[in-house]
């Protein structure tokens, strides 16, 4: 009896020690995510934490502070184990040497091959891979079916060319009052690279220069798309407030049900379902000049490991896991978030065809690989937004494009 008790106590001691050593071996990881991608990242991290002994704590960084925070963190040797940020900063961060080389690890992962091409392109620098897709967003064209119906248009058929967008917008504007055919944020550079540039790319244009020798704003699509916007503006199909909107009202007007058509992000689908559940709206690809032309801008966040991460191996495990079927479907799709793997655009959770269309847009979308993206595009003084404002609101399309070309080349040469 005493022996049995002793054996029991020994067994208990061993199990406690084992549990203790197990607990000691479980790591606590830190991850930074920008505010815009925090919701999606939180779903993934929560799921990871329920399934793994190594836990991840998410820290949300305001969008416009991510670069400063990472730069000072790298300089001070105080970085998180994993980082997720706006994919557009990838070229600058890779060049600056902020990120771990993940080439061998990612190339060995069969799921990496299925990730949307735009992410793979953007995370490559001098033959090496530094990250992969994480929480995507992509631009699409939305139309208000209720307004289409009132205007005598087929509510189930979205526009498939720029000319159709124009014609539909005219008919919707004819409803009168404060109902407008089209909306875009005329003073928001980011909104327009997201929703206007794909119209140009779909029409065969090339927008930004990768090097100083590269010619920017090439192809007839650039001028034609600007002229298309100019015409709609001159005809009063767009609300006057579009000229001054710096993005704070990017999707707000569409939610009021008074806008017929607008380019937006996939995020708007769940926003509309939540905020205006009665609104009937459709989703299609951003079209080009001719029928069959379509494109989108692949945005959202990439995931990478900063140089100096104290848990490199577990960080890699997390990256591999989030690319797995479990991460993509249970972590993202189940929560109405688009997966970064193009092969999962159709899945058991996406029962809404509008979401499937959006997910498919990731596969055909583009993202520009350039340094100085902020200078060329994102800044409020960028040649990109100056070109749009001069062309659309002042009508000098050719002059605006010529000036922007020179400015972009000058920035690319820095």
């Amino acid at each position, binding site marked *: 009896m005493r022996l049995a008790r002793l054996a029991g106590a020994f067994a208990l001691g061993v199990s406690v020690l084992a549990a203790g050593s197990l607990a000691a071996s479980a790591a606590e990881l830190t991850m930074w995510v920008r505010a815009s991608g925090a919701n999606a990242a939180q779903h993934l991290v929560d799921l990871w934490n329920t399934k793994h002994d190594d836990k991840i704590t998410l820290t949300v960084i305001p969008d416009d502070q991510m*670069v400063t925070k990472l730069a000072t963190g790298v300089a001070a040797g105080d970085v998180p184990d994993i980082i997720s940020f706006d994919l557009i900063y990838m070229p600058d961060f890779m060049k*600056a040497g902020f990120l771990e080389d993940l080439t061998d690890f990612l190339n060995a992962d069969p799921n990496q091959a299925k990730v949307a091409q735009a992410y793979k392109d953007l995370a490559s620098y001098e033959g090496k891979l530094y990250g992969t897709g994480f929480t995507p967003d992509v631009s699409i064209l939305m139309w208000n079916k209720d307004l289409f119906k009132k205007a005598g248009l087929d509510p189930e058929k979205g526009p498939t060319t720029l000319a159709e967008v124009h014609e539909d917008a005219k008919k919707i504007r004819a409803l009168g009052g404060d109902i407008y055919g089209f909306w875009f944020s005329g003073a928001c550079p980011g909104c327009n690279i997201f929703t206007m540039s794909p119209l140009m790319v779909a029409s065969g244009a090339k927008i930004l220069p990768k090097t100083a020798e590269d010619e920017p704003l090439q192809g007839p699509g650039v001028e034609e798309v600007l002229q298309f916007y100019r015409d709609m503006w001159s005809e009063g199909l767009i609300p006057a407030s579009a000229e001054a909107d710096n993005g704070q009202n990017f999707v707000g007007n569409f939610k009021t049900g008074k806008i017929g058509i607008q380019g937006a992000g996939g995020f708007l689908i769940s926003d509309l379902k939540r905020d205006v559940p009665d609104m009937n709206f459709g989703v299609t690809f951003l079209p080009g000049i001719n029928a069959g032309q379509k494109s989108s801008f692949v945005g959202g966040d990439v995931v990478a490991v900063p140089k100096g991460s104290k848990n490199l191996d577990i960080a890699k495990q997390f990256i591999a896991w989030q690319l797995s079927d479990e991460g993509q479907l249970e972590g993202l799709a189940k929560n109405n978030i688009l997966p970064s793997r193009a092969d999962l655009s159709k899945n058991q959770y996406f029962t809404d065809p509008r979401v499937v269309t959006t997910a498919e847009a990731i596969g055909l979308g583009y993202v520009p690989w350039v340094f100085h993206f902020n200078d060329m595009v994102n800044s409020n*003084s960028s040649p990109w937004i100056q070109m749009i404002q001069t062309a659309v609101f002042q009508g000098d399309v050719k002059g605006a494009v010529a000036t922007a070309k020179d400015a972009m080349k000058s920035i690319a040469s820095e």
Partner: protein
Amino acid sequence: MNAVRSRYIGLLYVAPAIVFVAVFVAYPLGRLVWLSLTNASLLGGARFDGINNYIRAWKDATFWTSLGFTIKYTLYITPILMGLGFLAALLTAENTPLKKLTRGVIFLPVVIGLGTSSLLWWWLFDQQVGLFNRALIDLHVLSEPIVWFTHAEVALWAVIISVVWKVVGFGMILFVSNIQGIDREINEAAMIDGASYWQRVGRIVLPLSYRTILLATLISAIGSMLAFEQFYIMTAGGPQGHTFTSVYWIYQNSFVFFKLGYGSALSVILTLIIVLGTAMQIFLTRRRERT
């Protein structure tokens, strides 16, 4: 021996202040000047670059345009703030319950953050849902709503209105404390001599508020020369970059374009301009005071 000793003791007394200034003013300023002589990037790396950043600043049309815009903003808003602040102080200087309440109401926006108030006004000025347009239409000032941020001049006035609402209470409080500090007997003597209200304001209150006016003007002018949040939130530099202030342009270069070295050079130039402007203002005011 005693003199030397007392000098050391004196130094000991001021040592904390010297250390404070050295750590929080001299070192950052020195570092700023050093950075301005490099090609430092926010993404790391800095190489000595001589005065290239200053040469570049000389040729940077946007910087000079933004500086011109900032000076214009300062010249517009400073007299408005001083005038309205002084008038509000005249109206509320006495300590009756109603005037105390009025002072509190006018001062209330001062405690709101500038970012918050700018966002609030951005919505108030909105063409479609903003109450400001609605009020102007109801008052028959406008026939239809206007888009406030489409034209630089209109956008500037929209920002001025929002900042005046936010800041005017601060000047008022300074003036109130000054007016309340004026000896009651001086006013009473003037009243016995038959001086009207405005004569007393012009001949007694204003001259005796000279130092407060100088202080309030300096604070207001320096604050306006460093304007950033209100334009960042309300105009985002638009339309077409016409409402960039100097600090906004420095921010753009340093944190959006990652050019820390160049941003530092612009900061040094702006600091020098503000120091020179302030010195000139103090010099002119003192000379006037002496005459």
